[in-house]
């Protein structure tokens, strides 16, 4: 089985983010692997360990993606493709999906595993659009993957009414929830070996395409302005005798917030 997985570098959501003149202030920001992609990489490595698979990571982004790719190598990924092209500074989900389609078609993969969304955009579109482009099966928000045989897998997905169990014909695209696993901390040996591994760096030309082709001439949507979210202000905080302060708060819920 050949598995393709993805990793995107995203702004660290734990940090305070400032907006000035409609743009995010880059100063002081740090970038980390998208947490859900880390789950996708872990799920990929587990499938390799349990069932045998050749695993490939693809990452789209600038040269600062290298440390993240090495981390994925250290976790147990076999091959890595880094799509680095300045034209991809302007993208939407469709452009990312087109680029991934080109990578997929060059590699004859059986399974694509990605995080359910990226922490920077919180969109959750790219993998599903990729599956539509490829005309293959897609299941999102997956919390368990089990290999049935070379051509079929069984997955559990968190749906609105409970856990949905699906049998999926390969090739397929799966997006994973963070509930699927706890990503491993790479061992020292893995980290040392990862340093020596080659990363296949390609621009769009090397991938056999162009920005014109992957963007279809124009983006379907583009962010034109960032704004700071209205910060919720903390209200009244009560300390002291539990019975007293609780009664006080209940009174406020009734008479001030009017929720009862």
């Amino acid at each position, binding site marked *: 089985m050949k598995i393709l997985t993805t990793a995107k570098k995203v702004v660290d959501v734990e940090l305070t983010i400032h907006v000035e003149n409609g743009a995010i202030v880059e100063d002081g920001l740090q970038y980390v692997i998208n947490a859900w992609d880390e789950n996708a990489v872990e799920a990929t490595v587990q499938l390799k360990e349990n069932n045998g698979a050749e695993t490939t990571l693809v990452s789209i982004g600038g040269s600062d993606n290298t440390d993240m790719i090495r981390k994925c190598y250290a976790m147990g990924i076999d091959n890595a493709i880094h799509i680095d092209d300045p034209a991809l500074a302007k993208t939407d989900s469709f452009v990312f999906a087109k680029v991934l389609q080109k990578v997929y078609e060059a590699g004859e993969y059986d399974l694509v595993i990605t995080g359910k969304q990226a922490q920077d955009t919180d969109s959750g579109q790219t993998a599903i659009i990729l599956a539509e482009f490829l005309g293959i099966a897609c299941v*999102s928000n997956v919390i368990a993957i089990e290999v049935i045989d070379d051509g079929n897998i069984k997955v559990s997905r968190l749906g609105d009414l409970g856990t949905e169990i699906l049998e999926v014909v390969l090739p397929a695209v799966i997006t994973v929830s963070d509930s699927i696993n706890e990503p491993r901390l790479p061992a020292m040996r893995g980290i040392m070996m990862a340093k020596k591994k080659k990363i296949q760096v390609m621009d769009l030309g090397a991938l056999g395409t162009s920005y014109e082709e992957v963007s279809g001439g124009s983006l379907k949507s583009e962010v*034109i302005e960032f704004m700071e979210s209205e910060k919720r202000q903390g209200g009244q905080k009560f*300390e002291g005798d539990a019975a007293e302060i609780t009664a006080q708060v209940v009174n406020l819920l009734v008479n001030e917030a009017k929720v009862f």
Partner: protein
Amino acid sequence: MAKVLVIADIKQGVLKGSTAELLSKAKAIGAETAVVAIGSNIESLANDLANAGSDTQYIADDASLELFSAGPYASCVVDAANQFEANLIWFGFSESSKAMAPRVAAQLEAACATEIIDVVLEADQIQVTRPAIANKVMQKVKINTERLVAVVRAGAFEATQGITGTQNVVKLTAPARDLKAVIKELISDASGEIDLADADIVISVGRGAKDQAGIDLVKELAHDLGAGFGSSRAMVDGGFMAHNKQVGQTGKIVAPTLYMAIGISGAIQHLAGMNGSKTILAVNKDPEAPIFNVADYGIVGDLFEVVPILQKELKKIRA
């Protein structure tokens, strides 16, 4: 003129409130409205669908559509969108919506925006506002296509009182089953429990509850108030609460009238799932817990002591 197609939110045969909210917003921007309802044995909902504010009801009613399956469900939406010539296709917030919207967008070659909180139409130019980076920023997104497929964030639009529609049912042909991703089984949530997505009050429990006894204590309060019962990630990871009870960026996003965070410290991922709530009450032992930075009312105290008092006091006023 704008034409809005709203995907009806039907759960276990019942039309949920988000449908009327989305249709209200559609009418407020002066759009023609239609709704698409997908499921099995749902034809009796035609009246409810009209009353929610739709003037055309596309209904795909077939035994094969009993369980959610993203492929065929998305095909129904595409069919309705094309028949109605909708330029705005709106989903309410749910896991099913998140699975369908990008498929529909890809098939219609339309832009896709998830979790929108506002939409503006000026001279055929669509612009939406949506949160990003775990709610830390808002972004304005310019849509360059004539059509937009969007998932609307929970609680973003309000239902207009007294909204009306007209009954005009168009039956859709059920699409073929998805043979590449076959739904075999649905392991249902404990039935009879209140759906977090449309509960007026949501009470969530966190690490402070320690164990099953603590959870049961908070659950009793939720039961008394007819509230949805949710959880922080810690309790899900600890195996105490089911995955689908998790409120947060990675789980359910809720915006109830009252949200009670009991024994929850308030990690950023949790806040992203509930900070759209109208009123937030937090109970936590640690006066420095970040949850107090977003709570309208904070009680610093041990939940094992506070929750029974809260329960007693609330019983008094609801009696």
